[in-house]
């Protein structure tokens, strides 16, 4: 049916990627593309045997993970505040937050580079994390704002009447109810950070380079090392899929909304 067709079309390049990662150089451009080829694991062996690879992998995990957590920690309360409470200047403030995402990265990256040199944040985890949190906050705040608005206020008010503190009500009622939104936001946030390139390139060096910068290294002047590039891509994308699979179970929508009726 339609879904299968859509899946086929979307997954075709993915299939290509896995396909290439298992071939060697001369077979990549065979015509017709589906002619028989030999599976070779040489590309994967190279990547996994590369002594520096764990370092870059760890860099990516730390940077993406911490940035997402921090963005969520800062952004979710802010989004809640914007959604629930009307205070002076709330619209302006939320628009300001949105505006931070509007700047083209290239205009921003050069002054950041210069400043980071001065304050010693160049090639550090903290430096890049701060930048990613800055970029990701807008998404977190506005997406979660939308999700929070969907949740009826009555539940929260009922809890407050029952004697919960505002913080408690927030943690026990509103947060779990917007779990699908929270999960979606987290996944998107992690993916943006995981794949971000320009800031990572300029603001890191030998020590804290994350994976996207490293992977660009396969695109050399003279030829693209397709086999290794795709093998790396497959290895790099697996944690994200893994993460998405795990958090799938926490998207329980209809179930919790049933609590509205009580």
């Amino acid at each position, binding site marked *: 049916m339609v*879904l299968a067709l*859509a899946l086929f079309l*979307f*997954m075709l*390049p*993915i299939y*290509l*990627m896995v396909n*290439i990662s298992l071939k060697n150089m001369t077979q990549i451009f065979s*015509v017709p*593309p589906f002619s028989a080829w030999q599976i070779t694991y040489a590309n994967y062996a190279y990547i996994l045997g590369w002594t520096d690879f764990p370092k870059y992998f760890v860099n990516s995990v730390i940077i993406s993970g911490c940035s997402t957590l921090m963005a969520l920690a*800062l952004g979710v*309360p*802010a989004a809640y*505040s914007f959604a629930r*409470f009307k205070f002076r200047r709330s619209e302006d*403030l939320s628009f300001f*937050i*949105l505006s931070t*995402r*509007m*700047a*083209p*990265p*290239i*205009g*921003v990256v*050069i*002054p950041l580079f210069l*400043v980071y040199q001065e304050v010693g944040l160049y090639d550090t985890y903290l430096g890049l994390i*701060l930048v990613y*949190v800055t970029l990701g*906050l807008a998404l977190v705040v*506005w*997406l979660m704002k*939308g*999700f929070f*608005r*969907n949740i009826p206020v009555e539940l929260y008010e009922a809890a407050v009447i029952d004697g919960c503190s505002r913080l408690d009500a927030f943690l026990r009622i509103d947060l779990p109810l917007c779990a*699908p939104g929270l999960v*979606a936001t987290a*996944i*998107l946030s992690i993916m943006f950070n*995981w*794949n971000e*390139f*320009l800031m990572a390139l300029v603001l890191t060096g030998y020590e804290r380079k994350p994976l996207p910068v490293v992977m660009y290294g396969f695109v050399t002047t003279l030829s693209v090392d*397709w086999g290794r*590039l*795709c093998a790396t*891509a497959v290895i790099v*994308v697996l944690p*994200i*899929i893994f993460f*998405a*699979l795990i958090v*799938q179970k926490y*998207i329980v*929508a209809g179930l919790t*909304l049933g609590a509205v009726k009580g």
Partner: protein
Amino acid sequence: MKFEVSLVLPCIILLLGMTIFPFFFCVYISLTNWTPPSPAGFVGVLNYVAALSDPVFYGNILRTLTFTGVGVATETVLGIGLATLLNRQFRGRAIVRSIFILPLAITPVVVGELWRILFHYDFGWINYFLRTVGVPPVVWLGSAQHALASCILVDIWQWTPFMTLVALAGLQSVPAEPIEAARIDGASDFAIFFRVTLPLMQNVVFVGLMFRVVDSLKAFDIIFALTGGGPGNSSQTLNLATYLQAFFYFRFYDSATYAIVLYLIVLIFTMIFVRAMRRMGIE
């Protein structure tokens, strides 16, 4: 301090701290003729005037708008459609949903290279399929007519899952009662979708749409990897030009100028969006 404001404050402080200096620096540079390492000389709005009298500049803007318009519209429609399909119960749903985010999850450089192979005139899969069904093959990346279209195609491929994910989350927070009520009232599936489900999703979908527009106007990674600006200038967008000016021509002042102009364009779009959202009652 009020509870509500204190929730927002850490956010604001961080953002202010991180963005003030870069922003003013960028504005300042756009008013100079800085080509490092020579010191910057103030030239006022000369750069902006030069840009406004440069036909390539207008071409860049036009291409950026086309890229965003076509791309985001398609992604939204497809995304919402796919989300409805994915919302049904079927076996292996969790796995399918996880796989579906793959286009979004793959590093842009790999996406660029993969599609370069797919688009290859002689060896590419797309032309292979076209030939098999008897359609003459197309020069995708090497021709001026199709370079931008190819970039848009890849953008759609990569970002529809974003809209799908957002729409799916939106769908799942739609309460069941209004839909049931409408069904009891005898409304058709079609009507239910357009008049009940969609408006209930609109909070979330609209935000997703807005972000897509903002990001798409600033699209860089894919276009750079695929065509680098295309044959001639045919796939050069404003953000790409900003990068090229800075790192290829070493004209940081032009780069800053384009960046500010792009920022203003995005600002205008966003303001339109937010105003529309307020009027629609989303805000």
